[in-house]
């Protein structure tokens, strides 16, 4: 398997996905060599069946946030492109040098597509590509160099795994991908890591936004809905957790809207702290403009925090017990937040059902379906 980010260096869903996927695949008896760019903080293998091989001394790994944070194409650094090409070249040498006879190669997103295709050709083995997001999701002005790689990837891969039906639709629409070779496999969640919602009595009600502060995640809509909620519920506090390029704009917006004293910007928080934040909040809102999956919604569900989720997200396909909203419908979003704050009976019912749903969406299930895709390409 070819990966890019990996714990402890995580900035998005890709790192979490790779970690949980290889852990569960390992548990199910699949032997994996995971090739990663050399990272400052050394990754640790989650299972004896998983061997981590770091390649390319001196490669500067740009994590996802840096690759996609900006709006304009020229925000991409020459370093990242260089790093991607270096990783493809170096991982191929390492693959060959390992002397291992691999059954297939599995890569993730555009960052590792070049490396995946090179391995497929050089070793003559099938390629499985998982698409977590596309350039069209990340950028209002997609960079054609990246979308070109993505298009080549879905056309070259023997099977493409899409993280949602929405993602599958995107691949077919934007890249004219052959939908007969695309399989939908949803992300999972390890509920054991999440704390149940604590029902401690607080004076304030807490409404949470958690995600990168980019246009794609919709933090502006969150603040605009917050302003409407605040008009009718003076007891609500709004937490904005995450970092990103939009922070200065969001701070100004909260002042413009007259809710600066009701919004708390918490910046980046580590994993364990994130889990307590979910469990202490009364409402979680994911107002994403475009979200191929949206793993943080699953995390909130696992914590039993009532969720309001953008209809334009992959996770909305399986979040049966969450409220769904159009990302642009600020009035509806505000009304839903107000209802959750006002009607505890609904919060209780949603919370209980969301946790049950999350319990069904384990990573083992993701791994089992992924093995199904492996078996397809291997003709088993």
């Amino acid at each position, binding site marked *: 398997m070819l990966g890019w980010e990996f714990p402890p260096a995580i900035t998005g869903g890709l790192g979490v996905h790779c970690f949980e996927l290889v852990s569960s695949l390992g548990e199910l008896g699949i032997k994996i060599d995971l090739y990663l760019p050399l990272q400052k903080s050394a990754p640790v293998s989650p299972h004896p069946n998983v061997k981590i091989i770091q390649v390319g001394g001196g490669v500067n790994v740009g994590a996802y946030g840096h690759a996609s944070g900006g709006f304009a194409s020229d925000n991409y650094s020459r370093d990242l492109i260089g790093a991607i090409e270096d990783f493809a070249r170096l991982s191929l040498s390492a693959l060959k040098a390992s002397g291992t006879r691999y059954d297939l190669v599995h890569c993730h997103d555009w960052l590792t597509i070049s490396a995946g295709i090179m391995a497929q050709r050089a070793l003559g083995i099938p390629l499985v590509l998982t698409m977590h997001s596309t350039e069209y999701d990340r950028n209002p002005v997609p960079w054609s160099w990246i979308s070109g790689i993505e298009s080549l990837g879905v056309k070259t891969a023997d099977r493409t795994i899409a993280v949602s039906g929405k993602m599958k639709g995107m691949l077919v629409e934007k890249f004219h991908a052959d939908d007969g070779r695309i399989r939908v496999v949803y992300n999972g969640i390890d509920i054991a890591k999440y704390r149940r919602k604590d029902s401690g009595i607080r004076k304030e009600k807490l409404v949470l936004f958690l995600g990168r502060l980019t246009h794609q995640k919709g933090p502006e809509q969150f603040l605009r809905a917050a302003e*409407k909620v605040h*008009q*009718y519920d003076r007891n609500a506090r709004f937490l904005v957790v995450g970092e990103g390029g939009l922070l200065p704009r969001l701070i100004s917006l909260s002042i413009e809207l007259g809710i600066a004293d009701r919004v708390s910007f918490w910046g980046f928080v580590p994993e364990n702290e994130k889990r307590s934040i979910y469990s202490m909040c009364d409402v979680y809102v994911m107002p994403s403009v475009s979200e191929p999956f949206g793993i943080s919604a699953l995390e909130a569900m696992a914590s039993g925090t009532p969720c309001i989720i953008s209809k334009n997200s992959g996770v909305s396909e399986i979040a*049966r*017990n*969450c*409220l*769904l909203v159009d990302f642009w419908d600020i*009035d*509806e979003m*505000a*009304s*839903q937040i*107000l*209802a959750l704050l*006002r*009607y505890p*009976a*609904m919060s*209780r*019912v*949603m919370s209980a*059902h969301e946790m049950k749903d999350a319990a069904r969406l384990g990573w083992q299930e993701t791994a089992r379906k992924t093995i199904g895709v492996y078996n397809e390409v291997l003709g088993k």
Partner: protein
Amino acid sequence: MASICMYFQVHQPLRLRKVSLLNMYSGQMPSSPKDAYFNRELNEQIFRKVAAKCYLPTNELLLKLIEEHNGDFRFSFSLTGVFLEQCEMFGKDVLESFRRLADTGRVDFLAETYYHSLSSFYRDGSEFDAQVAMHHEAIRSLLGVTPSVFRNTESIFSNEIAARAEKLGYSGIIAEGIEHTLGGRSPNYVYNVQGCEKIKVLMRNYNLSDDIGYRFSSRSWKEWPLTAEKYAGWLSKCDGQCVNVFMDFETFGEHHWSDTGIFSFLRHLPAACLAHPNLNFRMAREVASWDARGTMDAPYPTSWADMERDLSAWLGNDMQHACFQEMESLGVAARRQGGEHLEAWRLLQSSDHLYYLCTKSLSDGDVHKYFSHYANPYEGFINYMNIIQDFKSRLGGV
């Protein structure tokens, strides 16, 4: 000799408008509660759609069948008051078609709560009595029939409810023929009810009812396609006095569309049954006059809904209980104000508004979804509870 007692439930909920807390807080609500809460356009549209697919063609066919069989084909209806009001508003032709059926004297009409409500569970019993009386009077004045058999909302039945129906003068009551009430006995007999003196209970034979109501168009069902002859054959093999085949009237043309062959099935059913010398058709009031075979004991309420056949379709989760309790608590103020407020309160009691909030999963959840115009139960709850809160503030913040 077994008699076939067919009864069709006719109800059409009054669907609610979307009311958000922002609309309410910003004072954008119409002044009349009925205009503010009920979606007249949507209700009219649905009513006319169902009228064209089900009510009108089925009634026409039933009338023809009664005439063809010189009165040997007979059956019963139960029409909710909420349905009758929609007939007045959107479908005088539909009401007229029921009137023509009533005029044959071969069609019985049952009593029920006018508003299709769960008022049988209010602590103050007077609201239930008032709704049953309203319905009784509506059937009498609109259709010229005086009901004698009572059918509580969604066939909800218990010893206590039967006793109240008896006290109101009814000779029979409808119940779901579930195993734990029957206790190994057949549903195909008339029974007395524990704690009551005279009232008889008619137990629905849910297997034979659901063969038509649910399974008829299911191609994965081993009996598909079901013909009138095959079904009549099953009925003729039944033991007992009566086979109670009860279903939603929308079975014909709406739950099963015309192209499934449901109308052809109905067209042939009377003749296919009457071809068996041991079968005839009887109305509910006739069956309820027969001698009972034993006594049914239902200390806890049963219903005809979902797998559980209990109250969980309407009162199964906290959201449903919260809405029900709020509604019940507004009764004193609504009655004191009377007029349009009392009417709005009663219309809002329709059990459908609670049914949409059900969060049971698996196959029953799908059934709830089929009947609901909300994306999910939470959206339904927010809307219903918002309306209840708005109504509460109109009553002067009880």
